[in-house]
């Protein structure tokens, strides 16, 4: 019975043994390459992990938003929902709940930031009180029980008592949020009675969402349904696009690394040449030398990959990715503080492999071959 693999495995084991010993003999040269390699993996992995975490966060946040938001359009611009509009929708099968929402933006000159005012039913927020988001509370130094006054757009001054600060868990959503009662909202913005900002619909079956949107568009031709899945898709492609842009910028770094790898692999020292010469003189074949060198590349690649990836993980999930934050996260005066949920994903690791190990291997193949075909007599002379 032919033996399946063991002599082959045995041979590779000895080759790896030899390679490790030979790597150890040239520590400084290989260390330099390893550091550059690990650094490249670190940068690319930070990028991948960070965008992936942001993407997950966006999915997380949007999971709680209504499936369909209906806006009314006038001359192509978002307009208020007039009285009676909600009833015009009638009963659409599959819609669990529909409600008019009231919200708007308020510019606060004190911190030069926009707040989002949103009306809640009286049982949640009593008249004369507000609930504020944690970021806003930090910016204005607010705590429960404080009184704050805002000058409305009509010039009148309104004072509100802060009933509570919203939980920091929801900070990504509620950073700049001010919850007021409906009556206060209408009085503050002088909102016309019976009008709403938009309509939120909840749909139980995700497969029905598109049909419902089609029915809405048919029943109310002047409306624009916005689907949650569309918003989600937009977020996904925005993050993909940002990641792609940074990657393109970094492609110069990858190229530089490829050149470095090529240089390192082709600039064999006299001693290395002698070593290969001796190996060939004692009976190694060209193929064996190539195999040994490939093992060397693989060992360096895996070590660098591991080091770089672990470094990136710590950088992103323990320190919040300070290097890439400004490019990838976006910007706002009241930017929410949030911690990223650690998530590692197979696709990203595979992609990362293609961006690091693949170019490295491609770059060292020719130099490896050049080294391997060296004639023993030529170097030992």
């Amino acid at each position, binding site marked *: 019975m032919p033996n399946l693999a063991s002599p082959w495995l045995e041979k590779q084991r000895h080759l790896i043994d030899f390679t490790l010993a030979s790597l150890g003999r040239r520590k400084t040269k290989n260390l330099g390459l390893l550091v550059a390699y690990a650094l490249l993996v670190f940068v690319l992995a930070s990028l*991948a992990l960070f965008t992936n975490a942001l993407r997950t966060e966006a999915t997380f946040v949007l999971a709680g938003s209504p499936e369909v938001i209906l806006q009314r359009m006038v001359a192509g611009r978002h307009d208020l929902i007039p009285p009676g509009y909600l009833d015009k929708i009638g009963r659409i099968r599959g819609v669990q709940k529909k409600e008019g929402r009231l919200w708007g933006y308020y510019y606060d000159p004190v911190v030069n930031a926009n707040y989002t005012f949103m009306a809640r039913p009286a049982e949640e927020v009593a008249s004369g009180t507000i609930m504020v988001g944690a970021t806003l509370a930090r910016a204005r130094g607010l705590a429960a029980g404080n009184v704050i006054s805002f000058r409305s757009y009509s010039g009148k001054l309104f004072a509100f008592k802060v009933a509570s600060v919203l939980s920091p868990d929801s900070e990504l959503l509620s950073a700049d949020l001010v919850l007021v009662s409906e009556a206060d909202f209408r009085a503050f913005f002088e909102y016309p009675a019976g009008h709403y900002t938009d309509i939120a619909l909840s749909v139980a079956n995700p497969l029905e969402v598109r049909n419902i949107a089609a029915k809405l568009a048919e029943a109310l031709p002047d409306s624009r349904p916005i689907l949650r899945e569309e918003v989600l898709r937009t977020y996904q492609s925005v993050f993909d696009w940002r990641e*792609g842009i940074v990657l393109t910028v970094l492609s110069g770094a990858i190229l530089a690394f490829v050149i470095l790898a090529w240089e390192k692999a082709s600039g064999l020292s006299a001693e290395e040449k002698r070593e290969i010469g001796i190996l060939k003189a004692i009976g190694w074949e060209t193929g064996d030398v190539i195999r040994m060198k490939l093992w060397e590349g693989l060992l360096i690649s895996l070590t660098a990959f591991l080091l770089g990836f672990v470094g990136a993980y710590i950088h992103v999930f323990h320190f919040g990715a300070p290097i890439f934050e400004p490019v990838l996260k976006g910007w706002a005066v009241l930017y929410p503080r949030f911690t990223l949920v650690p998530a590692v994903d197979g696709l990203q690791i595979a992609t990362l492999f293609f*961006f690091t190990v693949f170019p490295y291997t491609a770059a060292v193949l020719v130099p490896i071959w050049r080294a391997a075909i060296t004639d023993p007599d030529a170097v030992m002379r």
Partner: protein
Amino acid sequence: MLFQPAIIALLMAAGVAVLMLTAAAPFAVQVILRWDIRSGSEQQLALERRTYLFSTLLSFVFVIQLAALLLFVFNADRLSGMFVGAMCAVGTLNVNDYGFPSLISQMGVFFLAAMWLAINHVDTRAPDYPLVRIKYGLLLLLLPVLVLSFWLELQYFLGLKANVITSCCGSLFSGDAKTIAGEASGMEAQPAIFLFYSGLTAATGLALWHWRRGSRRSGYLLAAASAAGFVAAIIGVLSFISLYIYEHPHHHCPFCILKPEYDYQGYWLYLPLFTATAAGLGAGALQPFARVRSLASVIPGVSARLAGISALGYSLFIAIATYFVLASKLILIEH
């Protein structure tokens, strides 16, 4: 085009592969015209040295091709969130006309590459490199296939537009659909189970036979049985294995089983299946050269080993598939 890292990586890998093979092409022509193992001329020596470079390059290209195939499917599955109506890789591949051709051409390249690597492997084991001309001739034939595969992939990715409405796997792999995939998945469970087990048992049996007593005939038969076994396996996945995994009598998709919701069970199926098929085809690809004198002692050993790998892969595939069916709570056939 979607500006997405995995897509850039795939295009880069395919592009580099094409470049490397193109760089090898003039050399291949040179080998075919000038190779003379008995000559001790400078030129012959240079050619001999270069064969090392190019066989290493090609092994690299083909390993990358395998990794790229996995990444391609994996990424297609992930992208499904971007397309209206797409729920898994099927929807993404259906976004334009190039998706499935691209996948199939990549699978084709993978199997052809496996056969080439098998031939290359035995050739380097013989002292006089008897197959060098044939090998590089085949390489020249492989180049257009690789270019086609790259072109299809490029067209596919360039044509990806996120607002296209596509159809999900439910409409493609349903019994009423008039496509090959539809026909295959529309097959009744009982004949499909019969076809699946008989096809794969035949492939395993032939692999075992060839492993123990290699002959040229059994080698050819093994290659044929591997190809047939692969088709039977895919039909089996479409018509009943996936149903058992999803525990749903009408969900035939061969890609959703790769999703995390189903614990990536598909990888357990596809990896042994692809390995076994590649090894079986490789064993068959060696047989035309079994009579070459310097290979007469090399080929039986190598092809027996490939047959062993193939037998192991197929048995593993059958065992895993059977386990999935038995562990499932779905009852497809009353008895």
